[in-house]
């Protein structure tokens, strides 16, 4: 059993309840013990930063300081929300540069009797933790009901792989971690080039026209590639695409009906857990129809006849370290379960 | 405070003939101003830097010592600057144990093209040492010291 400090983030108590409710049994199943950070506070999302920089940093600093104090120097933090994860890693990394930011934040923290030494805690997103620390082999072992027949669009969103302060992702624009995980669950993963494009962020609240457009782009392309269900790793992404889809339709005259659920919900299904224990049903665009496809016959792919004129493709990303031209910068290997970053 | 701001530290800077000494030349050619507190010694390489030189400088009255060399991977003699790095790290530990603030010994990399950077490093070094105040090792007295002022207790005993 690996033990981690759990920073849920505000959404997990509200709009992202399905995420929380599904990740708890799933983590237990794969041997992840989560201990909630006592008395954590909001990370400020993207809002506080636009008002006051140092207080916004200090707000995040308090969470880091609490975590450090509660970790006994042994545990890493895991955040399921990408925005929380980004904020935690960002402030940790800024402080670690030791160019004055650390002193300012610690000065502020000292007013509350706290302090934080940057770089001491590993900070993970739940997805990277499962892929790299738990490993896909462990996940595969637990699968009792493979998600065959389900066409899933892996939607990671922005803030997990960007800005990759903790250096945990295979790529910041086309990361493959969610593809691998969903593949391990037996689902049919569609090629979804918009996987890290924006869900609209806070725009539904402050500039709905922008938000409708961004939501439309994501859903429209998912439909284009015949997706049954989109998979999110962040409560804000899920909320925007799910809850504002109807409004988007009204506004743009579209007829999108694309369900989106959290990856932990699908893991739970594949592990044989009951839908209602995994928060299914709380989505506004129902996933019911999509879920029923699980287990359906997969039409056999027609083997594309190799065209005698076709030119070979370059080795795809992830063919390992290339012979030439890496210039000392290692290409990321997609080796499953490879631990990267974090504490040794 | 006033005493400190009047204090003009003396810094001895060790330079590499191929990079930082040339950077100093370049700073001159470009007329980049920096504090006159630094006095440079030319060596063929930062790898020539014998910790004795640093100790000597402190013992003779320097308030700070700067070691400069080629950037890692760019040593004219391939990798001797790494030896300077290793010695610097061990020497610094030793000096700290001797009560000399770590900031008084500084290692900076500067290529032959980095006149501006070298001037900036020098300026920062001077300011750091200015804040620390004089070291004055060369003035250390051999005066006989009174052991302890305990006359009062003594009378009680007597």
């Amino acid at each position, binding site marked *: 059993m690996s033990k981690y400090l759990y920073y849920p983030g505000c959404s997990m108590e*509200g709009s992202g309840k399905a995420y929380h409710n599904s990740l708890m049994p799933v983590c237990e199943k794969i041997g992840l013990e989560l201990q909630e950070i006592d008395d954590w506070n909001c990370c400020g999302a993207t809002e506080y930063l636009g008002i006051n*920089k140092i207080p916004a940093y200090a707000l995040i600093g308090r969470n880091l300081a609490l975590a450090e104090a509660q970790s006994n120097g042994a545990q890493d933090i895991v955040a399921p929300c990408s925005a929380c994860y980004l904020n935690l890693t960002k402030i940790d990394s800024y402080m670690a540069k030791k160019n004055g930011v650390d002193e300012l*934040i610690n000065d502020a923290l000292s007013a509350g009797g706290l302090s934080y030494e940057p770089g001491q805690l590993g900070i993970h997103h739940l997805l990277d933790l499962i892929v790299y620390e738990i490993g896909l082999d462990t996940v595969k072992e637990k699968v009792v009901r493979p998600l065959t027949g389900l066409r899933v669009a892996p939607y990671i969103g922005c803030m997990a792989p960007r800005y990759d302060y903790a250096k945990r992702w295979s790529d910041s624009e086309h990361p493959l971690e969610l593809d691998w995980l969903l593949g391990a669950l037996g689902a049919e993963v569609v090629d979804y080039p918009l996987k890290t494009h924006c869900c609209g962020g806070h725009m539904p609240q402050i500039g709905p026209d922008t938000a409708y457009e961004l939501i439309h782009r994501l859903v429209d392309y998912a439909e284009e590639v015949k997706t049954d269900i989109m998979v999110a790793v962040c409560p804000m992404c899920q909320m925007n695409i799910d809850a504002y889809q109807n409004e988007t339709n009204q506004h743009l005259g579209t007829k999108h009906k694309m369900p989106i659920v959290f990856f932990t919900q699908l893991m739970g299904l594949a592990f044989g857990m009951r839908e209602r224990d995994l928060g299914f049903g709380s989505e506004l665009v129902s996933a019911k129809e999509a879920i029923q496809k699980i287990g359906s016959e997969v039409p056999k792919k027609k083997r594309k006849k190799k065209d005698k004129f076709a030119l070979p493709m370059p080795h795809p990303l992830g063919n390992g370290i290339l012979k030439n031209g890496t210039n000392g910068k290692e290409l990321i290997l997609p080796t499953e379960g490879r631990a990267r970053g974090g504490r040794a | 405070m006033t005493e400190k701001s009047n204090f003009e530290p003396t810094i001895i800077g060790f330079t590499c003939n191929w990079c930082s000494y040339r950077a100093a030349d370049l700073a001159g050619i470009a007329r980049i101003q920096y504090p006159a507190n630094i006095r440079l010694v030319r060596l063929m390489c930062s790898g020539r830097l014998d910790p004795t030189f640093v100790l000597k400088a402190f013992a003779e009255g320097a308030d700070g010592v700067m070691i400069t060399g080629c950037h890692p991977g760019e040593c004219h003699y391939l990798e001797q600057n790494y030896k300077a790095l290793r010695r610097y790290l061990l020497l610094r530990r030793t000096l700290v144990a001797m009560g000399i603030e770590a900031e008084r010994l500084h290692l900076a990399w500067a290529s032959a093209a980095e006149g501006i950077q070298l001037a900036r490093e020098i300026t920062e070094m001077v300011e750091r040492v200015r804040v620390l105040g004089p070291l004055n090792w060369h003035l250390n007295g051999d005066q006989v010291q009174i052991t302890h002022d305990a006359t009062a207790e003594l009378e009680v005993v007597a």
Partner: protein
Amino acid sequence: MSHLAPQTEKNFKLMEQVAQKTGSDSKLETCIQCGTCGGSCPSAMDMEHTPRKLFALLRAGEREEVLSSNTPWVCVSCYFCAVRCPQEIKIPDVMYTLKSMAVAEGAYRDSTASDFSRTFVSMVENYGRSYELGLATRHYLRHFPLRLPSMAPMGIGLLSKKRLNLKPKKIQGIKQLNAILDRAKELEAA
């Protein structure tokens, strides 16, 4: 198009000021005007200026035009520009700085976004947690009263699916948090 900004010292120092406020490694002044940011931005179509243009205006000292621009408020913090910028400029951080300067100087034209941020912050300062329902009702009533009919099904949906808490949660260490934030505000002002 307005007249050029007066060529005052204050205006000329604008870029320096923004860079300094953003942090020592914002690298803002190294912008080469390549447009990677403007090309990458998912909400560029709704921006009065692309980020690149905004930086050119900063450099030109167009203080008023920059601080009243909607660009930073339309920024969705997707970080595409940050990972692609060939000069490694921390563009989202610059946007945050511009927002805070606009708020401090009251320079923004539309208060929707800044009000949302401020409401959010006040929730956090009162409870230590975000309070989605309170935030949404306060915000929508003020800025989007006309949107409410089309949003009602969603709100009811979320409520009925227990995805909105009726009451805010307050952390125990709210006093401690406010002491920290107060000190941070002092430091920011210094």
